[in-house]
């Protein structure tokens, strides 16, 4: 079936199966920032923004995105570049599998919470698992980036 949605500001028409997940639809359209890590919304690496709100694309049927506006980090490259500078300098890069989704979730957090505290940041990003870094360097990088933006 054909569905319409906007991805990063571009109108898209996808031919999808009724039981197809948004993750697969978007990856088939070469949005490689979105990764598969699980299939029950429990790791965060498939995060996309639906009308600005972070959702897990592994658990959302593509048909549910009909008419909605989807954002991936491909749509916020400048912001991701900036955050990545902080990641680089704090040693927060390891395997990188969670980094795109983390950058996107940070973007969403900024629109929702002004001046987030340490606890706010941890709480907002709690669903974005990372097995490599131990979180400390990521946290420092995100916090410094936010502070410099203010």
């Amino acid at each position, binding site marked *: 079936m054909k569905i319409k949605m906007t991805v990063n500001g571009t109108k898209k028409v996808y031919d999808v199966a009724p039981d197809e997940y948004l993750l697969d639809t978007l990856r088939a359209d070469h949005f490689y920032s979105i*990764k598969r890590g699980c299939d029950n919304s429990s790791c965060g690496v498939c995060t996309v923004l639906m009308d600005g709100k972070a959702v897990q694309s592994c658990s959302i049927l593509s048909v549910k995105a009909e008419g909605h506006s989807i954002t991936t980090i491909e749509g916020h*490259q400048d912001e991701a570049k900036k955050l990545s500078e902080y990641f680089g*300098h704090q040693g*927060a890069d390891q395997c*990188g599998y969670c980094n795109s989704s983390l950058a996107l979730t940070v973007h969403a957090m900024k629109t929702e919470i002004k001046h987030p505290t340490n606890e706010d940041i941890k709480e907002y990003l709690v669903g974005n698992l990372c097995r*490599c870094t131990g*979180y400390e360097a990521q946290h420092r990088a995100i916090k410094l980036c936010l502070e410099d933006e203010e």
Partner: protein
Amino acid sequence: MKVVNQALPSIDGKGLMLGKKAYTDDLAEPHSLIVKVLRSPHPYAKIIKIDTTKAEALNGVELVLTYKDFDRRPFTRSGQGYPEPSPYDKFVLDEYVRYIGDEAAAVAAVDVKTAEKALKLIDIEYEVLEPVLDFETAYENKILVHPEPEIHDMFPIGFDPKKNLAASYHMHVGDVTKSLEESEVTIEETFYTQAQAHAMLEPHNVNARIDYQGRLVLYSSTQTPIHVRRIISQALDYPLSKIRVIKPRVGGGFGGKQAIHGEMFVSTVTLKTGKPSKMMYTRKEVFESSYSRHPMRLDIKLGATKDGILKVIDCWVTSDTGAYGEHALTVFMVVAAKVFPLYNKVDSVRFHGNVVYTNHTPAGAYRGYGAIQGNFALESAIDILCHKLNMDPVEFRQKNMMKETETSPIFKIMGEGTEGIEMFMDSCKLDYCVKRGAELANWKELYPRKELGNSKVKGVGMAIAMQGSGIPYVDMAAATIKLNDDGFYNLMIGATDIGQGSDTILAQIAAEALGTTLDKVIVYSSDTDLTPYDTGAYASSTTYVSGNAVLKAGKEMRQMIINEAAKVFEVNPEDVEYDGVTLKTKNKEITLKELSNRLFYNKDQKQLQITSSYYGTKSPPPFMAGFVEIDVDKETGEVDIIDYISIVDCGTTINPMLAKGQVEGGIVQGIGMAMYEEVNYTKKGKLITNDFLNYRIPTRREIHKLTTEFADSYEKSGPYGAKSVGEIGIDTPPAAIANAVYNAVGVRITTLPITPEKILLAIKKKERGE
């Protein structure tokens, strides 16, 4: 040093955050056949009938594979060097299935849905067999997990499948029985560790195609591309020269991607159909059907003089390798080999035990590789002994632990599945690590506990650890450096970046040796057609072994450049000065850029390229002291980690930021094993903890503060003084946290993970005087 020991950003972080095409699944061919595996619902069964007619008839199904499609040729999936110290006990597909999740058949179809439908259409009848689910009763059990006659070992590893033994081992120094009798104070305790899951975020992932030259080309999310190529050739009896394995960007490994996963299936499907194929494990398959850490029971006895000199360590271990014996012996040996030398002043050591088969998910390599299990037992036991001696655990360790220039007889006795080599500690700053850690932890003030005035009490605990740096005389790494026009270089390495940053730190070593900057060194790694040999990312070998190969290549390339300039100047090479940019002699000079252009286009043309190899003749251990401050709620048993302090001696940190990341990542995985990561099976042997909702890895909420520092240390055999740092971080948390809990509330938890329920139950028992 200008590039080494500098906290430079990783060379690939930005592109990955931007979401560039980089990982295995990003590189699968469009319209690849989807490979799915029919997995056993029984912990142990024999396939007595398998009919694939209906599945094959389904529209969109290309191929169904059963054990009948494969020669009966045992191999090991372990992903080690050859010959492997793991038993050849696996068939690509077998008529036996040995755990819930084991491979019974495979299908290749046009899409996931069709493949899954086809799995249901395979008509399979099992003779369900009684399983071995309790590893403590596996040895000499009447039920044999591997009754088949074809399986074998490659050299003696204590393999005896008629007793359910994948491996067994015995070593001793001195006479432990006598030493224990003579000891004024002795303790005895039993510890249990669980089957921790790697839980890397990228699942096991592989894809295949036949290229335009008719060769089989795989992209694989692996830690060991060269071993993968060899094992595919062995298991499928297909020429090695016709296989190419490329490791693209890998989303975490931690040992879990050392071994083979879907490689045999995609290779077979693509060879049989001529079509590209891919396989991606579901998260459930990652948990149930890959590998875990070896769960163990460790029985340990210690003896000391009453003034606190440790005299004897006696340890019996039973390790559960699950259904297949990947890494059975070597993980087992590391329990002692990379832990017990910490206390090198003892008179006697005995270490022995069995690695048994059971009908559980197989165990394999996992960061720490036995050392974390051994560390939990020994470092907990040391604290028990300290309590009995009424001695401060820091003071006890300072008295008894390994010091610089010293050795341990264990190094010579125990190697990687074989005998080891004698080794003296040319770099060991453990004394500094302990002293500095105690300072930062405010040990004098806080040990053993501080009541916080409510139901909470603060406790501190500590443990020390060591690891290795590669496998001496076994692990080899090679590096190729090529000079390009315009004066930049390619660094081609077999070393396998799985997220730990090896591409970056090896480029740093090359840049330092070449006298250039990081941007002038273009790294390409882990492609069996294009990069030289390297064992892969395991055994904490990359910084030390691969790093030494890169250093050697860098130095040699630098000399080649000088030699070429000497020819241009018509002087001796000794008369050329070179700062990495400009080559000078008396009144002449030429820049590297000019020289490289001249070598390509103008005069005496040639390609400057060098390949250098290195293998270690020792394995210098990194050391660390871990100190933890916790708050325990006596009413709920809940533990909050306030700060985890790591003081690490890894020699020179090639990149201090990335080294810190290795330590902190290891610490948090260790904290996960210590406190959160429970592994539960049903009575029938089904893994319950098979997703991220049931298997709880630490989130950013649990991690309050990590304090990580490095000791000033220089290992002269390492590249620019470096040792390894990939595994050492994971070792201390289980023991340090167990010790802190004891110090806080006086209960000793000997079974991992240390959950609030166990603490509370122990507190209640203690209150009742049990």
